[in-house]
């Protein structure tokens, strides 16, 4: 294990932020800490980096107890949401910083920094100052800076949180590819379930300062531990006292076994996806179908239809 967190508790004043948190991060993996804001995920990341001290519990990095180790002695790379660029230094000097601190020979620094700048596609901007870069470029610089010291683990705190949607998506794909090239154990914090599912090998869901579930994106999506995780990981709707994914429901015009009669209240076409809103015995629910399915059904508001979860659909019973 590259990182082992054991029974970590942390409070800010009287507010508990982490409660008995234990996680394992496998060497070479790309793990997402996912959860709503205030769930403790950033604090956990900062505890791993040594930027916060846990009240109790231990942190092991590559098998070594790092709990009381100062951040500068942990050899972890940290990337901040707001870049934390050294604004008085050029892109080159920003990336070189950790190597200069380690007093590496000039020629070696130059070679390594240029390699990294090529990796993050900033080789042409080496002499610029951070203020002359876009947000996405600054974050790539911050990533190269963190990678320069060959950290044992790379920690990213909402790395794309301050960027606009387009750049966010690009960088997400790019981070995944970068990880496949560099293989450094990486943990990133996000509140965006799509980002976590798309990028990570492993997802740790944190809420209320506790680990709610751990697993691959598929496991967490398909077998959520509780209604909270199911809601957080993707769209849900309620049929017959069960939480179901709206794409796991079928609609037919004729009665089917196990189906419930429903009245269509609205049909919303969102490009490829069509959202059929229905009323089942006074409850509102919605079903996600493809455009083709919707055309074949030819339904409109006021029509009576029959809905049921598809065979094999994952559903969670809601406590009544």
């Amino acid at each position, binding site marked *: 294990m590259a990182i082992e967190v054991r029974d970590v508790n942390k409070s800010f004043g009287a507010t508990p932020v982490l409660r008995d948190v234990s996680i394992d991060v496998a060497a070479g993996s790309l793990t997402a800490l996912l959860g709503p804001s205030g769930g403790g995920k950033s604090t956990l990341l900062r505890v791993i*980096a*040594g*930027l916060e001290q846990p009240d109790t519990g231990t942190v092991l990095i590559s098998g070594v107890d790092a709990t009381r180790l*100062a*951040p*500068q*002695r*942990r*050899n*972890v*790379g*940290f990337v*901040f949401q*707001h870049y*934390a*660029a*050294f*604004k*008085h*230094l050029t892109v080159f000097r920003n990336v070189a*910083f*950790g190597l200069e*601190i*380690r007093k590496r020979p000039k020629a070696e620094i130059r070679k390594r920094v240029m390699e990294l700048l090529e990796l993050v596609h900033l080789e042409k901007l080496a002499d610029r*100052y*951070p*203020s*002359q870069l876009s947000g996405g470029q600054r974050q790539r610089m*911050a990533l190269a*800076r*963190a990678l*320069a*010291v060959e950290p044992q683990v790379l920690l990213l705190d909402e790395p794309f949180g301050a960027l606009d949607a387009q750049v966010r998506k690009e960088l997400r794909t790019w981070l995944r590819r970068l990880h496949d090239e560099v293989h450094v154990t990486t943990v990133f914090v996000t509140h965006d379930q799509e980002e976590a599912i798309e990028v990570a090998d492993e997802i740790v869901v944190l809420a209320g300062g506790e680990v709610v579930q751990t697993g691959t994106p598929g496991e967490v999506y398909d077998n959520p531990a509780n209604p909270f995780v199911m809601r957080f990981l993707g769209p849900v709707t309620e049929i017959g006292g069960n939480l179901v994914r709206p794409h796991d429901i079928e609609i037919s015009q004729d009665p089917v076994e196990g189906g419930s009669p429903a009245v269509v209240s609205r049909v919303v076409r969102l490009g490829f996806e069509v959202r059929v809103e229905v009323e089942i015995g006074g409850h509102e629910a919605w079903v996600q179908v493809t455009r083709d399915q919707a055309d074949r059904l030819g339904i409109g508001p006021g029509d009576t239809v029959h809905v049921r979860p598809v065979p094999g659909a994952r559903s969670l019973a809601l406590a009544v």
Partner: protein
Amino acid sequence: MTRSRVAGGTAAGLGIAMLYLSLIVLIPLAAVVWRSMDEGPGYFWRSITTPDAWAALTLTIGASALVALINLVMGTIIAWVLVRDRFPGRSVLDTIIDLPFALPTIVAGLVLLALYGPQSPLGINLAYTRAAVVLALMFVTLPFVVRTVQPVLLELDKEMEQAAASLGAGPFQTFRRIILPNLIPAMLSGTALAFTRAIAEFGSTVLISGNLPFKTQVAAVNIFSQIESDNTTGAAAISTALLAVALVALITLDVLQRWGSRRG
């Protein structure tokens, strides 16, 4: 339409600003410089190199430079303590910093004389010495560096320091490589202001220094004594010399700041 109205507004604003500046600053200064040349450049040079004028000028510039350097270090330390440390009485201290600004300088002189004069309760008598001149200048210029560095330190991104730590920098390395370079423009600007304020100081030095020519008389007092002895041209010459020194200090500051802001 809109464009010409905006341009008209700008022109009016520029006009008012220039007129005001001219009346308050430029014309009086030009008059002093003009007056100093009344008897020709030879007389100008002789006026500022008379033994007493020259002694006053070198003392003033030397003491001001020393005081500016002390301020550079102490002002930065005080700003640091005010921003980064939490202790009881911090806000009181923060208010006290401005006192030397608010106090009439002659009162400052009186206070210093009472504390460090012949009747010093501390047993430290600095009256009529050059140390007293430096002390008085230190007192009146204290706020400059503190008040220029403080807001920059408040705005400084703490995450830069955390990033430096995670990259392996110890506290001293982080201070020298990350914090200090970001503070230097403000530190220099405060130092230059303290320096220019110090070379012009009159009130606070008058009582405690004793104004002994060749020993503790500062330039501003020398100018005053020249006027009293009806040598206005000589007084204007010494004033012009001070003006030139102040201008050089401010231009140096400006050049340094441009150099700093170019780096962004």
